[in-house]
C-alpha cells in the first residue's frame, strides 16, 4: 500500500468532469497539505461540489488523476472512504432516524470499537444528550449541521471534506465551528472546506477560487490578492448607487462593489483609478485608497470569467 510517505492530503491533477455537454469541472489541479485548512470558493454552480465528489470517489472523473491521503481516487475509493469525513452540502442524514440512531449507524459502518461510548461522547460534545432520541428531521438547520459534522468526525478521519458546512448557521455557531477546525488542523487533520463567506475565507491557510469549473487562482489570501494586481479606492458618502453606475462605464474602473455606506472601486492602474474616481465623485464624497480585499478580487475574477465565457458565443 502506498501509505502516506508524502505530506499531501489531497493531490489531484487535471481533473475534468462533464454532465452531458456541459463541462462542470475543467482541468482542476490542487494540492492540500497535511494539517492545512484549504478554502474552496466560487459562485454557485461553479463546480465546487462536483470537485469534492471527484476527490472522494463519489463521481468518476472524465480525465485527470490524483490521490487522496495517498490513495488513488480512481481505484482506491474504498480506502479513501474509510479515512475521510465527508459532509455533504445538502443535509443527508436520515430524517426518520433519531440522532442517536444516525450516529449509531455511522459508527457501525466504520466498525468503531466501543461504539456506544463513542456515540455518547459525541452526543455530549454536541450537547445533544437530551435530544438523542429526537427524530433528526425535526431538528433546526443549525443543529442538523452540527450533527452532520459530528457524524463525519466520529471515526477520527485524517481528512475532512466539508461542502458549505456553515450555510444557514448563525455567526456565533460559525465562529465556534471555525475554532474547532483550527484545533483539528493543529492536530494534523487536513480540511478542504467550501464556503461563500469572506470572513471564513480569511481564516483558511490557503484558498482556491473556482468559476465555471476552472480554477482562477490558488494560494494564500495575500498571494491571491497580489497576483491580480488590483488597486482599490473606497468612497464614503451618500448616493453611492448612482456613482457606482457611472463608474462602471469608466474604462479605468474595472469594477465596483457596494458595502453599505461605502463603495469600493478597483482598477489596474493605481494613479489613474484614484484621479478618475475623485473626478467623477466630485465634492461631498470622500475618496481614499485602501488595501484590495479578497472580496474585491473574487468579484473581479467572477466578472472576468463570465466575460470570457460570453465571448465565444
Amino acid at each position, binding site marked *: *500500500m502506498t501509505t502516506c510517505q508524502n505530506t499531501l492530503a489531497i493531490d489531484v491533477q487535471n481533473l475534468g468532469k462533464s454532465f452531458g455537454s456541459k463541462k462542470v469541472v475543467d482541468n482542476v489541479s490542487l494540492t492540500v497539505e497535511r494539517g492545512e485548512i484549504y478554502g474552496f470558493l466560487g459562485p454557485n454552480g461553479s463546480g465546487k461540489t462536483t470537485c469534492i*465528489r471527484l476527490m*472522494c*470517489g*463519489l*463521481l*468518476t472523473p472524465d480525465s485527470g488523476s490524483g490521490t487522496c491521503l495517498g490513495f488513488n481516487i480512481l481505484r482506491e*475509493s*474504498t*480506502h479513501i*472512504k*474509510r479515512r475521510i469525513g*465527508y459532509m*455533504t452540502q*445538502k443535509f*443527508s*442524514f*436520515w*430524517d*426518520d*432516524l433519531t440522532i442517536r*440512531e444516525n450516529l*449509531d*449507524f*455511522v459508527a*457501525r*459502518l*466504520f*466498525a468503531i470499537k466501543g461504539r456506544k461510548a463513542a456515540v455518547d461522547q459525541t452526543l455530549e460534545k454536541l450537547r445533544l444528550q437530551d435530544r438523542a432520541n429526537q*427524530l433528526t428531521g425535526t431538528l433546526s438547520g443549525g443543529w442538523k449541521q452540527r450533527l452532520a459534522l459530528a457524524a463525519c468526525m466520529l471515526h477520527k478521519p485524517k481528512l475532512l471534506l466539508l461542502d458549505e458546512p456553515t450555510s444557514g448557521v448563525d455567526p456565533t455557531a460559525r465562529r465556534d465551528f471555525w475554532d474547532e477546525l483550527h484545533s483539528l488542523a493543529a492536530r494534523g487533520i487536513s480540511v478542504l472546506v467550501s464556503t461563500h463567506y469572506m470572513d471564513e475565507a480569511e481564516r483558511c491557510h490557503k484558498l482556491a477560487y473556482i468559476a465555471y469549473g476552472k480554477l482562477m487562482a490558488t494560494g494564500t489570501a495575500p498571494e491571491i490578492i497580489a497576483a491580480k494586481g488590483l488597486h482599490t479606492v473606497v468612497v464614503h458618502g451618500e448616493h453611492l448607487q448612482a456613482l457606482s453606475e457611472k463608474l462602471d462605464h469608466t474604462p479605468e474602473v474595472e469594477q465596483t462593489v457596494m458595502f453599505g455606506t461605502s463603495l469600493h472601486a478597483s482598477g489596474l492602474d493605481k494613479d489613474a483609478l484614484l484621479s478618475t474616481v475623485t473626478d467623477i465623485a466630485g465634492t461631498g464624497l470622500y475618496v481614499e485608497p485602501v488595501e484590495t480585499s479578497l472580496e474585491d478580487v473574487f468579484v473581479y475574477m467572477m466578472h472576468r470569467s463570465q466575460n470570457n465565457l460570453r465571448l465565444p458565443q
Partner: protein
Amino acid sequence: MSRESTFSFTRWWGVVVKEFLQLKRDPVTFVMILIMPVMQLLLFGYAMNTDPKNLPTALIIGEQSQFTRRIEASLRNSDYFAITKTLDENTARHALAKGEVQFVVSIPVDFSRRLVRGERPAILIEADATDPMTIGGALSALQGIVESVAEKELTGALGHVRGTSEALSIQVHRMYNPEGLTHYNVVPGLMGVILALTTVMMTGLSITKERERGTMENLLALPVSPMEIMMGKIVPYIFIGHFQAGVIILLTRLLFRVPFVGNPFALYVATVLFIASNLMLGVTLSSFTKNQLQAMQLTMFYFLPNMMLSGFTFPFAGMPKWAQVIGNIFPLTHFNRSVRGVLLKGNDWGDLWPHLWPVALFCVVVMALSVLFFRRTLD
C-alpha cells in the same frame, strides 16, 4: 486490500438495523403490507374464464385395435389436446401429479372384446382439476369425441351394441379438486402474485428513496459495499414476505377453505426462494430508477407479463410455445405450481424440485446482475 473489500458483518448489520428502524416509522408502508394481501385475496377471489386448447394429454392404451386407433386419431385431430406420450400407468400418473400433463386417458385391456360382448367397458379420464377453468371445455370435448367414435365404429356387425350410453361408459376423475372449485386455483395463485408485487416494489422503493431524498450520497460516501447495502436492505422484507405468506395461507384455509395436503416444509422452502428472487429483482430494478414513481412503473412493467404468462391469468398449458418459454423464466410461474402442488396435490420434495431450481437459478443470476448494475457513484 482484500481484507478491506470483504463483506463485513458489522456493516451489514448496521444497514439491517437502519432499515428496520425506518420501516417501523413508515406507517403507510406498514398498513400497505397488512392490508394488501387481504384486499387482493378478497378482490380476486373469484374466477377468470378462458377455454384453452392443446392441453397436454397422456394416452394409455391397453390394446391395439381399430377402435383405439380411431380414438387416438380423433383426439389428435381435436385442437383441445396435445397427445404428448403414450405411457404406462405409473409414469402417466406421475406426469399428472407434476403438472406435465393435464389429462390421462386410459383405455383398458380387452376393451374392444368387452365392448362387443356388451359388457359396457369403461374409458377412464383423469383430469388435473386444480385449475377447473383449464379443463372445462376440453373435458366435454373429450367425452364427445369418445362418444362419436363409438357411434361410428359400432356399425354393421356391432350394430346391436350401438348407442354409447349402453355400450360403454366414460368415467371422469377430477383429480385434486373434485368439485372443480375455481377459487382452489385462484386463491393459491394469489399468494405468488401478492408476494411478488409487494416485495419487488418495496425493495425497489427503499433504494430509490435514498436517491430521491439525497441520502444516497451519504451512504455512498460511507465505507459500506454495495453487497452490504443490498443484503442489509432486503432483510426486513424477507420478514415481511414471511408475514404476508402466513396471512395468505391462513386466509386461504379459513376463508376459502382451500385444502393443504402436501409437505409444508417444501412449500416453506419454495416461498423463501420466491421471496428472495423478488427482493433481488427489486434491488436490480432500482439501479435503473431515479425516483419512486419510476420504481413503481418499472415494477408494473415487470409485473404485468408475470401476471399474464405465469399461468395466473391464463392457463399456462393454453399459451403458445414462445409465451411458455418466457413464462418459465419468471419465478412466479414456478411458485404458482409449487403452491398448487403442495396445497392441492399433496406434492413433496420430489415433485417440487423441478419448480425450485429455476427460481434458485433466477436468484443467483439476478443477484449477480444487481451487483453489476449497482451504482457505486453518483454519475
